[in-house]
Structure formats: C-alpha cells, structure tokens
C-alpha cells in the first residue's frame, strides 16, 4: 500500500500532470460558477482533447474539472442564491442568507474548508476501500434503491422548510414532472401530448435554472438595492475556514452521507446535497437557525457533494458502473484509452491508478486554495447594484439553460419555472421539495418496477431484503417520531 502511494504521488506530482490538474481545476471552477453549465458539460467538451494525451494526464484533467466544479457551483449558490451546479443547490439555503447579512466571505470560507476536507476523505475512501466497498455496493439492488428514494422523499416531507403540507404538494409536483416523457423501464411515453421535446422529458437543468436563478432575479428586481443588505462585507474568509471545524458532527456526518450516496449508481451528488442538508437540519440542536444563515447549513451540503464525487468513482473503476454523470464521462475516458475497469486496472496499471488517486488528492487541495484566492473578488458581487446585476444574471442564466441541450425550448421552460418558483416561494411552497421529487421520481419508479420484475410481481421483495426493510423502518420512524415525541412530551408534562 505504501509503495503504491509513493508510486502514485511520484506520478501525480510530475510537472506535466500538475499542469493538467491546475488546468482542470481552473476550468472546473469557471464552469461551476455558471448557472446551468456544470462539470459534466465541460468534461464532455474536453474529452476529444484528451485523445492524444497519456491516460493519466487525461484522467487527471477530467477528474480535476469534476472536483473543482463542485467547489465552483457553490460560489453563485452562496452569493446569488443561484446554484452554478445542481449539486450545490441546497448550499444556497443558508449560504445566501449569510451573504445577505454581509458574511459572504465567511460562508465561502465554510464552503471551501468543508469541501476540501470532504473531498480528501472521499478520495481516501476511494484509495483504501475501493475494492471491498464496491463488492458491498453490489448488494444494493433495485429494491434497496427504491427504499432509499422513499427515504429521501420522507425526509422532504418531515423536514421541509415551511408548511409540511405545501412541502408534500411540491414533492408531488416534482414527482409528476419526472413522469413526463418516455419511461426507460416500462417503454411507455407519458404526458408528451405529441411533443418531441416532452417525449425526452423535462430537463433537470432548465428546471433548476428557472427555480433558483430566474426566481432569484425576479426577487432581486422587486427588492432593488444590493444583495448584502448593509451594502458592505463583514467577517473574514479565515473565520469561515476555522468555523467549519467547530461543527465536526455536521462535517463528518454529511461527508459520510455523501460518500455513501456516491456508491449507489444513479442517485448522485445533487440528492446527496439535499439529503445531507435535511439530515443536518433534522439532527441539529437548533433547527430553527436553518434557512437563516446557519454555518451547518453550508457545511453539510458542501461536505456531502464533495465526498460523493470521489466515491462515485468506486463502482465506476471497479465494476464499470458509474455512480453519476461525471463518473460516467470518466469511465468513457478510461475505455477510450484502452483500459478496462475492474480488478485488472488495479493490478496491471498500479502507477496509473495510484497516480490518479494521488492526483485527485492534490487536485482537491489545489481547488480549495484557488477557490480561496478568488473569494475576495467573487464576494464583491454582493455589493454591486441590483439594477446592473439583474440583467447580467438573466442573460448568463438563460444562456446556461440553452447551452446544456442547445434547445431554445429550455429557455422558455426555465422562464416558466422561474415565474412559478417566484409565486410558489412567496406563498411558502418550498422549492427544495419539488427538486427532490424531480430527482428521486425517476429513480423511485424505475427501481420499483425493476424490483417487481425481479420478484415476479411479488411485493414481498421490499420487506424480504434486509437493507430495504431497514431503510423502510427508518422511514416509518421518521414519519411517526414527531407524534411519539409530542406524546412523550405531553406525558412528561402531565407527570410533573
């Protein structure tokens, strides 16, 4: 193991590889900042350029984009309430209130340090536990995935900010939107009304750009002034950096949530981001501070999405099953360079695989320091007059919505969801629930039908599988706990 590590660092720290890590990091931070464009888009654009590179340089370039994209996505989440990446959407819930209080630098310091720690832990898990963990992940079949999706929806129901009833309605709306288009498992087209656009389903990017970016632009225009209400910046970057370590439970717990979600194919960093936020809120001693600028509300989502990315590579590299979009693109790069995922990759190419792991670690640290260097400049956005900022953001957001699929209908979809999001938010309908419903809808339905196909339409599969049964039990506890707690409280009060 130590020999492999020395071998890996020797390869990763070669100047040419460091240059590609740096280049990938800059590109990742840059595309991460742009709403609608994320690391997968940049990686897809870069793939043709990697054909002529040596395999390690190619993998490091692409992986650095992916790692830095997660850092960059949080910049606009915190400063503008517009996630640059879908996987940084929940970061906005407490990051943006901190910016409004003039604490943008503190929030970004929290984000940078939580991201770095989580990314390093994620890479260490990838390094030391890839093979055994990959085999354990094989136990996660459709029934378990369905149970996990239901757990996510349950968390939405019990932990939604604002009215639970409205949270549930928005969750149902997200699920309903996920039904649109061709169902890959059942082969049925639903709610397309003969439209080719709807047949493909409503894209996640225009919905996110609409719900977060356009909604926020509308709010900015109605309110005027500057994002930082006092018109000036308070607190320092290092305060945020230090504060991260004052919340070790949130930091490590959310890192664990992200690392676990990364192992399960198809769930991804976006779900990890929301689930970690909800879990941190649920387990906090002061849940009432969430949504108003709680440091844990920035630490939890940032730690989870950054630990998710490296662990999503575990099933990709060991089993050939990508855990998410970025892992899928990396898998393409691996196969393009004549390599095959699996045990052989570890034994026949130790310099490549350990160089890649070491490069990921180096990339996580470089990304954190580049991000920290850029923060003072980024933070100035919060003191720019909204009159100039709003048109600029409208242009970039809608360009981002278009750029993903290069379809003008996406622009109108983003505008529609933006206006809807504005009125929904004004009336206390939590947008987070819609997003989770949309993310988990396809996963839940697909996994449900796959499970029934496997079991020959026997519903017992959901309770006979231990992991699925345990997950459903957790769902039940989450639903019943508030009632039980109330009853215990009432009993205690009567006793006294």
């Amino acid at each position, binding site marked *: 193991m130590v020999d492999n590590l020395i071998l890996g660092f020797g390869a990763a720290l070669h100047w040419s590889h460091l240059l590609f890590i740096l280049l990938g990091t800059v590109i990742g931070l840059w595309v991460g900042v742009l709403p609608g464009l994320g690391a997968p888009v940049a990686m897809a654009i870069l793939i043709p350029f990697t054909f002529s590179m040596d395999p390690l340089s190619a993998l490091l370039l692409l992986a650095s984009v992916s790692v830095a994209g997660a850092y960059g996505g949080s910049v606009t989440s915190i400063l503008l309430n517009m996630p640059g990446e879908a996987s940084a959407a929940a970061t906005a819930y407490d990051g943006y209130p901190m910016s409004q209080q003039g604490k943008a630098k503190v929030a970004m310091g929290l984000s940078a340090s939580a991201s770095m720690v989580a990314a390093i832990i994620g890479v260490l898990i990838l390094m030391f536990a890839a093979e055994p963990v990959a085999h354990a992940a094989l136990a996660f079949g459709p029934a378990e995935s369905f149970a996990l999706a239901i757990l996510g929806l349950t968390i939405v129901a019990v932990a939604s900010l604002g009215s639970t009833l409205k949270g549930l309605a928005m969750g149902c709306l997200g699920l309903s939107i996920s039904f649109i288009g061709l169902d890959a498992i059942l082969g049925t087209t639903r709610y397309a009304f003969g439209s080719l656009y709807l047949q493909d389903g409503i894209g996640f990017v225009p919905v996110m750009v609409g719900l977060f970016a356009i909604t926020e632009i509308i709010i900015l225009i109605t309110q005027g002034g500057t994002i930082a209400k006092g018109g000036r910046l308070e607190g320092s970057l290092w305060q945020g950096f230090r504060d991260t370590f004052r919340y070790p439970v949130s930091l490590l717990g959310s890192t664990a949530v992200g690392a676990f979600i990364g192992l399960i194919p198809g769930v991804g960093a976006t779900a990890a981001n929301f689930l970690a936020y909800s879990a941190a809120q649920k387990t906090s001693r002061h849940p009432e501070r969430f949504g108003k600028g709680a440091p844990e509300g920035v630490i939890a989502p940032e730690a989870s999405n950054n630990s998710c990315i490296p662990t999503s590579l575990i099933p990709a590299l060991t089993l050939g099953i990508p855990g998410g979009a970025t892992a899928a693109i990396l898998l393409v790069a691996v196969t393009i360079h004549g390599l095959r995922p699996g045990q052989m990759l570890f034994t026949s190419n130790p310099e490549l695989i350990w160089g890649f792991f070491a490069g990921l670690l180096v990339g996580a640290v470089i990304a954190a320091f580049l991000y920290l260097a850029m923060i003072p400049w980024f933070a100035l956005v919060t003191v720019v007059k909204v009159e100039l900022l709003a048109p600029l953001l409208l*242009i970039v957001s*809608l360009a981002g919505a278009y750029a993903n699929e290069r379809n003008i209908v996406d622009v109108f979809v983003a505008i529609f969801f933006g206006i809807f999001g504005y009125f929904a938010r004004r009336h206390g309908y939590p947008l987070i629930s819609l997003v989770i419903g949309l993310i988990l809808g396809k996963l839940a339905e697909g996994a449900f039908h796959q499970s029934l196909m496997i079991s020959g339409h026997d519903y017992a599969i959901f309770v006979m599988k231990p992991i699925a049964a345990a997950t459903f039990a957790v769902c039940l506890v989450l639903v019943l706990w508030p009632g039980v707690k109330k009853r215990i409280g009432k009993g205690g009060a009567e006793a006294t």
Partner: protein
Amino acid sequence: MIVEALRRYWREEFVLAGCLAVLFAAVAILAQGFPRDARLFPTVVGTAGALLSVTAFAIAFRARRRGGPPPDATAEEAAETPRRLGLAVLSPPLFGLVLWIFGFYVASFLAALVMPPLMGYPQRRVLLPFAVVTVVATALLFPVALDVSLPHGLIGDWLIDRFYAEG
C-alpha cells in the same frame, strides 16, 4: 401588510392552490389511459397531490375568514411595488420573446440597455458601454470559450439563410 397587498396575497394563494389541484387531478385522470404498470405512480401521486392542494386551499380559506396575517407569507412581499413586480415578472418572458425573434445578442443588448433605467438606475451614461461589454463578454464566453453557439433568432436565421443563398 396593506389591504390591497393582503387581498392580492389571498387571491394568489387561492389561484396557486387551485391550479395545483387542477394539475394534479389532470395527472391522475390522464394516467388512466396508460398501461397498468405505467399508471400506478402517476395515479397515486396525482391523487395525493390533488388532495394536498385542496387541503391547502381549504386551510387558506379558513385562515382568510378568521382574518389576521397570512400564515406562509414571506419577507419578499413587503418590499415590492406593483410596478417593480410587473417589471420583475415580465422581464424574463420578454427577454425570451426577443431572443426567439431577434436572437441572443439583440436580446442581451436590449436587456442590458433597457432594464437598469426601468429599475431606476440613475447613471445613464454607463448603460451603452455596459450593454456592449455584456454582449461581447457573452459572445466570448459561450461561442468562443465553451463552443456553444447561441441562438440567432428567427430573423437572424432568416438573414443567415439569405446571406448564404446569395453568396
């Protein structure tokens, strides 16, 4: 909250809950035309959503009859004026319409030039350079750096077709 704003709030609340109820009912009803497996989830979710929306409608109705402040009103409400709200809500669709007809660059130029003074930005001399820089930066960022050509609009496409036909 002043009386007119309160009235508008309740009107919006009822319209929102009503629209959601109709939408969910449509999801459930239209699902009946799908094969058995494909209709299961939409039927369950549509029915649940419709019930939740009707409940939200009923709760809002009771709260309004009782009087007092609306339970779920957010802080955004307080700062806005009808003029600013109109500008805020109409800006994105108007931008989309101009983009569709005239293309991204014309829409961006107009947005950067027209939106700030409509929002009350006083320094008009800054606007032309601001609009030009915005369009040039967008053109450099998307088509050049990211290799994403932005839409030229119906008129732009027509002009390009004519140019090639004549060329």
